[in-house]
């Protein structure tokens, strides 16, 4: 009964390939996120969706394309992978807690992407 799950857990691939990471949450939350955590543990938001609608799109290369088929799923597709894309990618979800900006986010276990 995992709350936020991601697949795969590890992903090793060659430069130039295209890959996808999948995320699912069974918490009934409206909002989902993708974060990138680099080798120095710095965590930065990439995208956020609310009820399948994109609401946050940070300055991320357009090789990264999120897709939300329904509000329980948020997938991340990456084209033409580069060495600098190597990182841990975290999916998270949240639901409005009554006051904007105060939501608790629930994180998945992460996907460690290694680009060779």
């Amino acid at each position, binding site marked *: 009964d995992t709350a*936020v799950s991601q697949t795969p857990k590890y992903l090793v691939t060659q430069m130039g390939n295209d890959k996808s990471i999948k995320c699912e949450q069974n918490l009934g939350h409206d909002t989902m996120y993708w974060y990138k955590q680099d080798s*120095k*543990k*710095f*965590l*930065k*938001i990439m995208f*956020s969706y609310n009820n399948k609608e994109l*609401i*946050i799109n940070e300055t991320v290369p357009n090789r990264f394309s999120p897709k939300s088929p329904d509000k329980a799923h948020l997938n991340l597709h990456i084209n033409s992978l580069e060495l600098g894309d190597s990182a841990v990618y*975290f999916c*998270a979800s949240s639901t409005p807690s009554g*006051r*904007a*900006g*105060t*939501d*608790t*986010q*629930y*994180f*998945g*276990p*992460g996907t460690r992407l290694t680009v060779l």
Partner: protein
Amino acid sequence: AQSVTQLDSQVPVFEEAPVELRCNYSSSVSVYLFWYVQYPNQGLQLLLKYLSGSTLVKGINGFEAEFNKSQTSFHLRKPSVHISDTAEYFCAVSELTSGTYKYIFGTGTRLKVLA
């Protein structure tokens, strides 16, 4: 834009000793502050958050944090740590940008509890 500073990248401490992990944020009109913990090979989970009201916030696993507006700090404390507290700790602030809130995280502090 908001920023969050965690000055200590690593904090070693002996088991059963007290610990304080420091967090400072850039000032803003209203601030929502969070501490998250990341155990090895896991995602982040919320320890506690400050929204308003009492400046001393109690969280899970015996942790607490104190919001200090004048010093723009939100330091995390635990009076007696356990080996199982070894983890990465992240301070975050919720920032309003273009009508939407998003988290801004600090760079994390690795707490290493020694036997």
